[in-house]
């Protein structure tokens, strides 16, 4: 399949944690150049960069605190200076916290989750979208998850559902610029290095009673970004082995 992604520039917001690294590599395999951000150690970030470079594409990296829109905007500008355009935003802004019961969840912990993920994503999109409008083409890929639908811990549920709302808003507003916005909603796929507290283990009653693989999530991002996915917008792509049916 020709995804039309060769020569495009893809910004991966967190390219070490969650599904960031396999996603960055999946885009590199399609010939896209990468702008990689991470709040993690420069060593981890450079490891992602090395794996991307191995695919023969160009890459720049920058340290960005999770949810920090101004740092990401600066990095995106560097990407435009380097590659001439920015085409795909993989907004993998996630603050992993152990799920808590509502009665134990303090206002401060709740605020930290909401302000990092939801508010962070809002202003990250606000900073990046004008760069896509310039080229009259773009793809915004956000991440939500099972918590949004199943209602697990309050911070995750609110943040993840809010991100779906943001995605729909961008889809409505930017469709006229050939910019699509969609959400990937993993559930039961274990990201490399992820603690067991964040995931949904397979159950005998699941349609697919096994763990999902990181590549099965990364593949979706490439699919949504492809040229031929241009009419797919405002949607949630659920990759959860059938745990929840939309």
């Amino acid at each position, binding site marked *: 399949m020709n995804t039309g992604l060769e020569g495009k520039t893809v910004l991966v917001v967190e390219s070490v944690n969650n599904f960031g690294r396999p996603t960055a590599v999946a885009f590199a395999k399609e010939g896209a150049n990468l702008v990689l951000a991470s709040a993690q150690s420069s060593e981890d970030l450079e490891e992602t960069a090395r794996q991307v470079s191995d695919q023969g594409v160009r890459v720049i990296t920058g340290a960005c605190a999770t949810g920090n829109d101004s740092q990401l905007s600066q990095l995106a500008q560097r990407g435009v200076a380097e590659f001439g355009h920015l085409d795909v935003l993989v907004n993998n802004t996630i603050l992993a916290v152990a799920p808590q019961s509502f009665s134990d969840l303090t206002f401060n912990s709740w605020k930290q989750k909401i302000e990092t993920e*939801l508010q962070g994503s809002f202003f990250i999109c606000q900073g990046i979208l004008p760069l896509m409008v310039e080229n009259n083409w773009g793809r915004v890929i956000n991440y939500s998850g099972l918590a949004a639908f199943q209602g697990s811990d309050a911070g995750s549920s*609110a943040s993840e559902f809010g991100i779906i709302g943001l995605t729909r808003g961008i889809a409505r507003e930017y469709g006229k610029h050939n910019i699509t916005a969609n959400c990937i909603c993993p559930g039961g796929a274990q990201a490399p290095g992820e603690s067991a507290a964040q995931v949904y283990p397979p159950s005998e009653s699941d349609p697919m009673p096994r763990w999902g693989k990181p590549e099965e999530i990364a593949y979706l991002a490439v699919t949504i970004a492809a040229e031929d996915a241009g009419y797919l917008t405002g949607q949630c792509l659920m990759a959860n082995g059938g745990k929840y049916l939309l």
Partner: protein
Amino acid sequence: MDTGLKGKTVLITGATRNHGRASAIAFAEEGANLLLCTRSSMDMLEETAQLASKSGVRVVTGACDVTDETQVDAFVQMGLTEFGHIDVLVNNAAWRARGDLLSIDEDLWQTALGVNLHAPFLTSKAVLPNMVRNNWGRIINYSGIAPFRGASGQGTLKMATEGLTRAIAQEYGRYNITANCIGPGSIAVARTPGQETGPDEGHGPLNIPVPRQGTVEECSAAVVFLASEQASYITGQNYLVNGGAYFH
């Protein structure tokens, strides 16, 4: 229909006018006592209280900034002292993050985030221990049409509220506490200056199955139903009152 609400205590935030006032009156007609608050419009809140009191129920009012943890806790404590129990929470207070993605600045975002999302978090936290003790409760939050039509600011915050609602529904169902959203469509209301209805929201005849704007009474009827004894198996849902503008 006996809704079973007689003698219950209903807390309604932002009950100064529109949806909040209509809900206050509707609950009073069911015989529920009311605990009403506003951030700053005490005159209008007293008018609501007066209208609701005509049904012969007890109404207690107070000023409360629902985005402030200390004030919320104090207000709920005051309500519990007055009534002994709070059975229904209606998170009606709202501030719209109007406008397109690029037009929403940090100030507007913070205000709308506080009123639409932090407030239901804080009020729910404050009332739930009492509801658990009574093994009965209803929490009703406001979503809207924005999550379905797509609106960057308002849709983000309203959907986040729905997520919070689902989490509460999941955790507290075992205590006979339900949490639901009501999702009004285009409803004829008075707006605060700066929050006016934009041209995108449609005036007059609307191109929807029920081709008109709805009324706040049509919404408060749904709120009362969700709070009723009969709605005890409905939880984690978003009841859309939108004239068929979106089929969920």
